[in-house]
């Protein structure tokens, strides 16, 4: 199962696979890393770390609030806990613990939520996190990262592990197109411009980055040159890149695989409103839960394709 673009991207692995591989690599050089999972290690790919470093891996069973609390204690003892589950379970079931035990004391816990978004497909809405970024943004001390593809996730994991303080990273289930070359530049809080253009800016994260590139490609055929920003960090937000985009292109479309009311679009809109108000439009899951089904069909039905970005862009032009 893969999320397929129309233009010729090379397909890469899922961002959860890249997370699992990067975590296993990091374990070789950083002996402080302790990984905690809640009986989904084969899904989150923390099992790859577990196979190599069983003494630094803890499966706490199906108990996400306990899982988060254990992460807090490990961090307080100087370990570097990476705690993982499905995004919906770790963020929703563990939220009070994330707030009180991790965010408030500002502990160095790295939280990774996999199977985020509606592109998990057939398992359906109960397993689809569409509010995890909103929840993470509700924890003021957290860095919030939503990488787009395999190469950038590899870099994002190292950047997250090197940073100090609590962080949330969202990764997905399906294989996704590669939008970066090998070893891309990746700095937390700094957007990557994947395409230049001065007619409009498309800002996206996660799987919507390739869709934004695809949309830019389609817009170019109609003579519209779109700038595309991979806004992989929702906090700290690259306010400067947003401001520049607003000033230089005058129009911004934000696209995310998340509830449209309370994710990347909101923080980008705030930044633009404060520094350089401009015309904006938003692509995301409208006020609804999705359903079970084929991932590509769901992305189509719930408005998360390049075509939807193009339509929003045209509404601003």
């Amino acid at each position, binding site marked *: 199962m893969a999320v397929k673009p129309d233009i010729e991207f090379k397909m890469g692995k899922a961002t959860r696979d890249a997370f699992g591989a990067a975590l296993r690599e990091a374990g070789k050089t950083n002996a402080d890393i302790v990984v905690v999972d809640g*009986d*989904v*290690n*084969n*899904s989150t790919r923390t*099992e790859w770390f577990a196979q190599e470093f069983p003494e630094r891996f803890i*499966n*706490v*069973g*199906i*108990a996400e*609030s*306990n899982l988060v609390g254990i992460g807090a204690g490990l961090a307080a003892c100087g370990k570097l806990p990476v705690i993982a589950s499905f995004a*919906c*379970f770790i963020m*929703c*079931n563990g939220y009070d613990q994330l707030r009180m035990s991790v965010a408030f004391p500002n502990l160095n816990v790295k939280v990774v939520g996999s199977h985020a978004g509606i592109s998990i497909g*057939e*398992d*359906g*809405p*109960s*397993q689809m996190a569409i509010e995890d970024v909103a929840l993470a943004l509700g924890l003021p001390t957290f860095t919030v990262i939503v990488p787009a593809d395999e190469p950038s996730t590899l870099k994002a994991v190292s950047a997250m592990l090197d940073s100090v303080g609590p962080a949330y990273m969202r990764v997905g289930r399906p294989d996704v197109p590669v939008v970066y070359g090998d070893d891309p530049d990746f700095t937390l809080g700094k957007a990557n411009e994947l395409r230049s253009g001065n007619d409009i800016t498309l800002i996206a994260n996660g799987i919507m980055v390739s869709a934004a590139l695809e949309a830019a490609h389609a817009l170019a055929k109609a003579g519209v040159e779109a700038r595309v920003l991979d806004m992989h960090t929702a906090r700290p937000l690259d306010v400067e890149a947003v401001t520049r985009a607003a000033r230089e292109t005058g129009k911004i479309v934000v696209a995310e695989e998340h509830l449209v009311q309370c994710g990347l679009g909101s923080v980008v809109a705030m930044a633009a409103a404060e520094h350089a108000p401009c015309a904006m439009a938003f692509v995301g899951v409208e006020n609804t839960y999705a*359903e*079970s*089904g*084929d991932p590509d*069909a*769901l992305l189509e*039905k719930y408005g998360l394709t390049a075509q939807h970005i193009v339509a929003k862009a045209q509404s601003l032009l």
Partner: protein
Amino acid sequence: MTVGEPMKMSIAELEEQARVLRRDIITCTTIAGSGHPSSSLSGVEIMAALYFGGVMRYDPAEPHWAKRDRLIMSKGHASPLLYVVLAHAGYFSTDLLETLRQIGSPLEGHPNMSRLPGVEASTGSLGQGLSIGLGHAFAARIENADNHVFVILGDGEQDEGQIWEAAMTAAHYKLDNVTAIVDHNKAQQTGWVRDVLDYSPLAEKWQAFQWDTQEIDGHDMEAVLDALQRAKATQGRPSCIIAHTVKGKGVSFVEADYSYHGKALTKEEEQRALEELGWQ
């Protein structure tokens, strides 16, 4: 079946019904190409006894009938089991089973009470069903009604703290109209329960939480029926049935391998499974 009279099959009929349910669980998940057949197969006798053995009072023509008993599938990933039972009970056509997990189908990967009649709770995030069941039980008590609430829990699901919060609440309030049934199939997602998180002794825990606790062979139809009847009749405290089951029951290669969790059988495996169940 007259309204309110539970469907009551004989033991032999129930056993044959169980074989039908197993077939349908396997075929609908194989058609879907994903899902949780192994988690569904372990609970077949329990669900057959509840719906077809004269235990539960319900009326498919009136899914919201106030006098109905409730079944909450807390281990929501066993939705194929719930769906095949609801279909055979008459809530909807068995033809719908082949739409499992397809876009537009009310038979979602996990049960969605807003879309499918007979589904009493939307589940899929483990640990939540028993508390919801308690809500139904309190509502019945307030109305002086005699509805009974059955909640099916996974044994991996026992890891969730919320279950034990609910267990204390039910005991404190002497909610004798609640029965928790643990589908103790010894496996969870990433391994055998005793290897992932060995919380034994399980029955002693429920006993210590002041639940009337029975331990049975969850594939022995007579034992299942007896336990359910006793649970329903128990007064003054909630009931727990620890049903010792086998994950993937009836399909040898699935029974032997916990890593079948969350995997539909291939076409070829489906054939072998149906043969083992005596369908070809």
